[in-house]
């Protein structure tokens, strides 16, 4: 297998490109995704290659074009609406939650609704409170949806290709800060990554750090720092939230006896809560200290950099959480 280094954005683009070529039922929709190539360049060149009938610029009408995508999916195509900033997904909630997620069930299995909704997430760009949010927890709470939160170019490509072949609505969250900053190896050969399979991004034995999307990189940096101090942290990336690979998460914590859960979404009633609850139960007899949750501060994301950076989980907060676990560890 030959590999190259691709950025996160390039990996996304390549997945779209390959699947557009493979399956002509796939159609992309979004604001300025066509001639302009997408504000984050994830659709660059696709308009030229597949034409205005496959890569479609929409009016500024999120509810409208996501709603249309539901009908397009129900009539045999596979639409891929893009939500430029995940913050705007609020406008399309009804169509995603009450329409896309339920149509199969409400019809007693008569239809499939293959939609891949691509949405961004993540702060740290000084974009203010309405362009920095991460709402993946909402969708993980909705039956009928699948939720994907890739952390590397490799995962992004493999998981997006899987989404584009899935007969169900998938909400695919891309951390916009990773688009051009995160590079990684991606094989030339085609590959798919199944949903529901967590990935151990770093092996370790003293503590488990569970992290997703961009926070995986922050967790890996924290693990590196901890390694210098002789602490061996395992970093586990669930990769998809629905389905969730509970087994791998629980097993890792059973092995290490401690868990720090890291997510860029808000802490309260967020991703870290579910993962903590699952692990607290699954690894009940193995936990040596309370699970630590590291999420965004529960405040609208502020613009000013010193404030914004304080709200988003960083290496330091993860390291401190690990310290708390190791201190709290009961004598064995």
């Amino acid at each position, binding site marked *: 297998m030959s590999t190259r280094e691709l950025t996160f954005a390039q990996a996304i683009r390549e997945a779209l490109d390959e699947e557009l070529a493979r399956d002509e039922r796939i159609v992309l929709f979004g604001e300025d995704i066509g001639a302009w190539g997408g504000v984050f360049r994830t659709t660059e060149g696709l308009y030229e290659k597949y034409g205005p009938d496959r890569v479609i610029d929409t009016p500024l009408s999120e509810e409208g074009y996501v709603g249309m995508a539901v009908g397009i999916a129900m009539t045999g195509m596979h639409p891929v609406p893009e939500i430029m900033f995940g913050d705007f997904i609020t406008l399309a909630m009804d169509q995603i939650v009450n329409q896309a997620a339920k149509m199969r069930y409400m019809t007693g*299995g008569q239809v*499939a609704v293959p939609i891949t909704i691509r949405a961004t997430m993540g702060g740290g760009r000084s974009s203010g409170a309405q362009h920095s949010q991460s709402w993946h927890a909402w969708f993980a709470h909705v039956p009928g949806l699948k939720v994907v939160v890739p952390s590397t170019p490799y995962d992004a490509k493999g998981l997006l290709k899987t989404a584009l072949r899935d007969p169900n609505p998938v909400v695919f969250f891309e951390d916009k800060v990773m688009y051009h900053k995160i590079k990684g190896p991606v094989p030339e050969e085609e590959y798919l990554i199944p949903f529901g399979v967590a990935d151990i991004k770093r092996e370790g034995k003293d503590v488990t750090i569970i992290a997703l999307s961009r926070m995986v990189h922050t967790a890996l940096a924290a693990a590196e720092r901890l390694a210098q101090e002789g602490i061996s942290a395992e970093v586990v990336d669930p990769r998809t939230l629905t389905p969730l690979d509970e087994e791998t998460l629980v097993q890792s914590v059973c092995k290490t006896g401690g868990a720090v859960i890291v997510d860029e979404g808000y802490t309260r009633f967020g991703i870290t809560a579910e993962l903590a609850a699952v692990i607290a139960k699954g690894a009940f007899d193995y936990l040596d200290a309370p699970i630590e949750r590291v999420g965004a501060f529960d405040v609208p994301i502020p613009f000013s950099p010193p404030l914004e950076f304080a709200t988003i989980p960083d290496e330091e907060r993860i390291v401190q959480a690990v310290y708390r676990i190791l201190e709290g560890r009961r004598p064995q």
Partner: protein
Amino acid sequence: MTERRTPPLEPSLLIEMYRRMLTIRFFEEAVFEVYRRGWMPGLAHLSDGQEATPVGVCMALRPDDTITSTHRGHGHIIAKGGQVEPMMAEVMGKVTGYCRGKGGEMHIADVSLGILGANGIVGGGLGIAAGSAFTAKREGKGRVSVAFFGDGAANQGLWYETANIAVLWKLPLIYVCENNQYTEFTHWKKLTAGEGLAVRARAMGMPGIEVDGNDVVAVYQAARELVERARRGEGPATLVCHTIRYGGHHVGDPGTAYRTKEEMEEWRKKDPIERCERLLLETGILSPQAIEATRNEIYERVQKAVEQARQDPFPPVEEVYEHVYA
């Protein structure tokens, strides 16, 4: 004998319209009875009185054309070819229902007939209808998509957003607004600025037509023209049909508190089925005996559907986890 009127449409077409309208009427009356007797769970939203609109529109459609329906959807489904037996079973939550009891009264669908679901979110189906029109255009086979919705739904932003896109992309989409005068318990004029949806549609750049929604022939003729136009690739249109529901907003509402007796009597004079019956008689297409026989036949069928649905089993509890994902 008096002079006979000339039929405005093919006799077979008129007969089929009559049959479907009757089926809707008897179905709705049966559902009311089923509710009254406690044979169904929940509530039901009936459309008796409004039969001419779904039937007039759907008779202008091909089998492969699609429709989206609403909370008041039984009429749309029958008009598009839905069968009363699995409908009645669905109303009662039985596993023999169209949706295996999972959808219920408000969500009956037969996708194989092009019925892309009914919607409990008022206006919520407009996106689906526009999406189906997108696929239809892509397929290039002249298929069209119809969105049924009410005067209340017409004030939802989704109409505006999809109308803009449908006109821009020349989608074969017919918006059929059934103006039954009320949005739940409030008159549409208290909730609708300006002259209504037909005028708004024109401002969006598509035809906006209004018809007597209780005249099945008028509805059919207007729909046909807009449907043919859409098939030719000339884009979407809006058809507003003025009508009334005889019953309340749902089976628990007598419908009398916010509407006057006089108002309802005026509407009863314009009953779509009686008008159609008169037409069939006056044109000699059906004899009084044939009318009587048709009524009996359809009535019996609906009653049998009720009896059968009552016997049918509820879905087994294991099914609760089925059909969440494909």
